[in-house]
């Protein structure tokens, strides 16, 4: 059974139809990359998966549980929305780190808040709370170490390079143990010499079988890291398949044009 099933997602903003019936599945541990020219709907699709936008039509099913269905007209409470969001992590193009917190605090903040809420609900004693929060902290430190930033934990975002900030953002998303980690053009805001360090972190996550959906313009990276590639064009999936099928074997006119323009 696929971990994620997306069926017939449509999204309109006013009269503009951005997504026109997107369906795909991914298996646990797979890496899916979404490619396509800007305006083709890749980012909107990611935002729908992370509940930043509500699809106009369609269903999203995770591990057999329906997370979203346009048939279901009952409005979700903030808490329900939040529980569903937590299945996914999202790394933004612009990092969106919290500027007033250190790298470590950026990673621990949300996890600490969740933990505190949970423990309050259980009426846990203070010693337990302290112990659990220490665990959150240790886990965050491990994550920062795994993205190569163990020496930058106490630095503020403004003291870090773009590549370092994006690696903190990846650690921050991992801190909540998402089942699927999404990346929205994670290297587009970076200087060319800094993209490598971010891509290699994503690559190492792929090696550890993290399920990921990546929107990217780095074609070589997409070719080498993906199990599956989707080429989107004007709100629909124009081509999908293995990297080989998409990049080398497809005769689709649009993708050939696209690949030519990015390889210029």
């Amino acid at each position, binding site marked *: 059974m696929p971990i994620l099933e997306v069926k017939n997602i449509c999204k309109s903003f006013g009269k503009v139809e951005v997504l026109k019936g997107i369906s795909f599945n991914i298996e646990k541990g797979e890496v899916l990359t979404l490619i396509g020219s800007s305006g083709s709907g890749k980012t909107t699709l990611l935002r729908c998966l992370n509940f*930043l936008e509500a699809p106009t039509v369609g269903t999203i099913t995770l591990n057999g549980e329906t997370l979203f269905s346009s048939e279901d007209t009952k409005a979700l409470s903030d808490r329900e929305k939040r529980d569903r969001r937590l299945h996914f992590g999202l790394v933004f193009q612009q990092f*969106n780190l919290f*500027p*007033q917190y250190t790298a470590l605090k950026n990673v621990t903040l949300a996890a600490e*808040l969740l933990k505190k809420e949970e423990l309050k609900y259980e009426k846990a004693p203070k010693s337990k709370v302290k112990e659990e929060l220490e665990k959150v902290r240790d886990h965050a430190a491990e994550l920062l170490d795994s993205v190569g930033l163990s020496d930058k934990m106490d630095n503020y*975002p403004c003291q870090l390079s773009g590549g370092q900030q994006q690696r903190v953002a990846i650690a921050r998303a991992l801190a909540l143990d998402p089942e699927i980690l999404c990346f929205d053009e994670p290297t587009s805001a970076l200087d060319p010499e800094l993209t490598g360090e971010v891509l290699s972190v994503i690559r190492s996550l792929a090696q550890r079988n993290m399920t990921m959906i990546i929107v990217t313009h780095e074609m070589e990276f997409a070719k080498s890291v993906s199990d599956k590639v989707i080429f989107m064009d004007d709100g629909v999936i124009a081509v999908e398949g293995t990297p080989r099928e998409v990049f080398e074997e497809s005769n689709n006119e649009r993708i050939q044009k696209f690949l030519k323009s990015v390889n210029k």
Partner: protein
Amino acid sequence: MIAAVTFGEVTLKLFEGFLSTLKIFGLTLLFALPLGLIISFGSMSRFRPLKYVVKVFVWIIRGTPLMLQLIVIYYGPGLIAMAARNSGASNFFVDLMEKMNNFSAMTMVVIAFVINYACYFSEIFRGGIESITQGQYEAGYVLGMTKSQIFFKVILLQVVKRIIPPMSNEIITLVKDTSLARIITAYELIWAAQKFIKSAGLLWPLLYTGVFYLAFCGLLTLLFGYFEKKLSYFRS
């Protein structure tokens, strides 16, 4: 007959007036800051009628002189109550006006100042809150934070940092606006100095008040500089 006054006596009297000035200043800040935040939420509300009512109110308050507002709030209730009495009308509103007519000048000054400054503060808050990028909220949402957690843990401090310069400007203006209280017979620093013109024929105490204003504004400038420095460890 004009009595001789010493420098020490003048200083003491002016200091009394200055304490009254401080009272207007302190009470206005105490109430206008939270009220301003509430008004700013109103002016950003997605509920259109509320938004427009608030915007019109802010327009009226910012669009008329504070001096006029003081006069309206001080004399208005009495005039309305008198007219109502003459026509024999009596209801909750008239009772309220009667009651307000009996408030002290000081109370009226604080009410007028709080309303006036809350409107100015609300626009500063609004500017600050709206200048924070959507990405900060979205980062909070995808990390499972609630709306109030995002506001208090992520947004607020960034807003505070950004609004310190315009806030300090407005607060320093407030120090000097307190001198308008005299218009509706509330005692403050300028009035304390003017008394010496009549009682002793002295003009210099009036000039001397400038020293008090300058010293206090200087202190505030240092204080705001300190806050700005405290928050300079991050950029947003």
